């Protein structure tokens, strides 16, 4: 056979269909030049005027047969080869699809794990309350929103835009641990967590701040209600009974320190949320010193904003109190001042 891949132009269409002229690039001829030339030869023979000798016919016929057989073999092989190639591509596609699904499900699992880790990272393992990290992570945003609310209400004070911070410590908790053991102590902490959550609305933050210390942040609250909220917590703990064994329960009390954020409504940026934490911590200590099972809160006098500068370390707070820039609120008449 001849292998001819040169650029030949011919009217393949007329070879097959008689009169229709075909021009342009003929892939058929380029792919199978031998076959096309055999057809052309037979065609010429057919169109010759007068008699053609039988040897010429025989020769052309044999040539056509030969090429026809060759074409058949090629057609069969190329079909089979193409099928194989196609199958291979389909298999690759299938395995890619499978791989993609695998990657997708791995990604989903990772996302889920990530969410779980994120949640675990801001959750206290024992009580399942939020932990300190949660407060540090989310409170700046909350505080900023409150500050903006105050700044956008020039003149009149917005209602129910305060954050009220309550720092709570369980009184004589060490004695529970010493007397009933740490397992029982943990059990009490879990029950206290439930009591504290019962004092809060959805959206409030209840966090375990330290060992037996808890922080509640009431959101969208009104500072005028801070005392009620503190008293509600004090009473809820005092009135509950806590199981230390399945058949033995005890009573507990707590001390509460509180304040509202922003501390100075007319200068909402003067004190940060961390200053507020520092303030309620001192209020809690004051409540402890005042005999426990009570609350102590503070608010600042907006008319003495000039005097209020530089945080809430104890000496500062004492001087604020002396000047009357800060007022303390104490439950009952236990408080003895700061």
């Amino acid at each position, binding site marked *: *056979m001849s*292998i001819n*891949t*040169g650029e030949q132009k011919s009217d393949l269409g007329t070879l097959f269909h008689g009169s229709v002229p075909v021009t342009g690039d003929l892939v058929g001829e*380029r*792919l199978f030049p031998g076959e096309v030339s055999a057809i052309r030869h037979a065609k010429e023979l057919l169109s010759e005027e007068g008699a053609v000798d039988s040897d010429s016919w025989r020769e052309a016929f044999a040539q056509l047969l030969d090429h026809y057989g060759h074409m058949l*073999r*090629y057609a069969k*092989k*190329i079909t*089979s*080869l*193409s099928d*194989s*190639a196609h*199958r*291979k*591509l389909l*298999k690759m596609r299938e395995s890619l699809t499978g791989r993609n699904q695998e990657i997708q499900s791995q990604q989903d699992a990772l996302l889920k794990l990530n969410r779980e880790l994120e949640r675990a990272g801001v959750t206290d393992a024992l009580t399942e309350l939020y932990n300190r990290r949660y407060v540090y992570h989310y409170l700046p945003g909350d505080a900023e929103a409150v500050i903006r609310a105050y700044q956008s209400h020039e003149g009149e004070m917005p209602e129910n835009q305060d954050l009220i911070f309550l720092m709570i410590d369980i009184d004589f908790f060490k004695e529970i641990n010493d007397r009933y053991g740490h397992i029982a102590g943990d059990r009490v902490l879990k029950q206290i967590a439930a009591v504290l959550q019962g004092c809060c609305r959805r959206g409030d933050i209840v966090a375990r701040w330290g060992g037996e210390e808890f922080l509640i942040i009431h959101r969208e609250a009104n500072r005028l209600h801070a005392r009620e909220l503190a008293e509600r917590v004090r009473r809820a703990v005092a009135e509950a009974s806590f199981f230390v064994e399945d058949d033995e329960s005890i009573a507990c009390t707590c001390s509460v320190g509180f304040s509202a954020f922003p501390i100075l409504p007319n200068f909402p940026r003067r004190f940060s949320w961390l200053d507020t934490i520092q303030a309620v911590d001192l209020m809690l200590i004051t409540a402890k010193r005042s005999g426990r099972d009570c609350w102590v809160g503070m608010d600042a006098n907006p008319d003495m904003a000039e005097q209020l500068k530089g945080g809430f370390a104890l000496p500062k707070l004492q001087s604020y109190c002396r000047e009357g820039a800060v007022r303390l609120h104490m439950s009952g008449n236990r408080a003895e001042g700061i």
Partner: protein
Amino acid sequence: MKLEPFYITGKKDTLAVRLDPQTGRMSFEGESYPENALEFFAPITKWIQAYMSEVKGAIVADFKLQYFNSSSSKCLLDIFELLENHFRQGHSVVVNWHYQEDDEDIEESGRDFAEDLSLQINMIAYE
């Protein structure tokens, strides 16, 4: 005129081809789905024809293909036909068809090429 060695590096869609007139070794490797397979294979078949008519020597041909399209398979069939003719003329022709162990489709393609030929084709699996 002396026949020069023929050497093309493989591309994404064309084969790496090495044709050595000294040893009669010919190797084809890679994937083949160029825009114009006829154009790509034309100088190769021309070289092989020249080798067969001028050098008239033995041939060892290695095919290690991963994928080829239909027009490439037509050109490869032409090469196999040349090899078959060379063999029938009494020359030594060894053809090795390499396929990846679990690649049934390329393995089957090798058998397709071998079909109807008196020429022996060695099927060689690689890892």
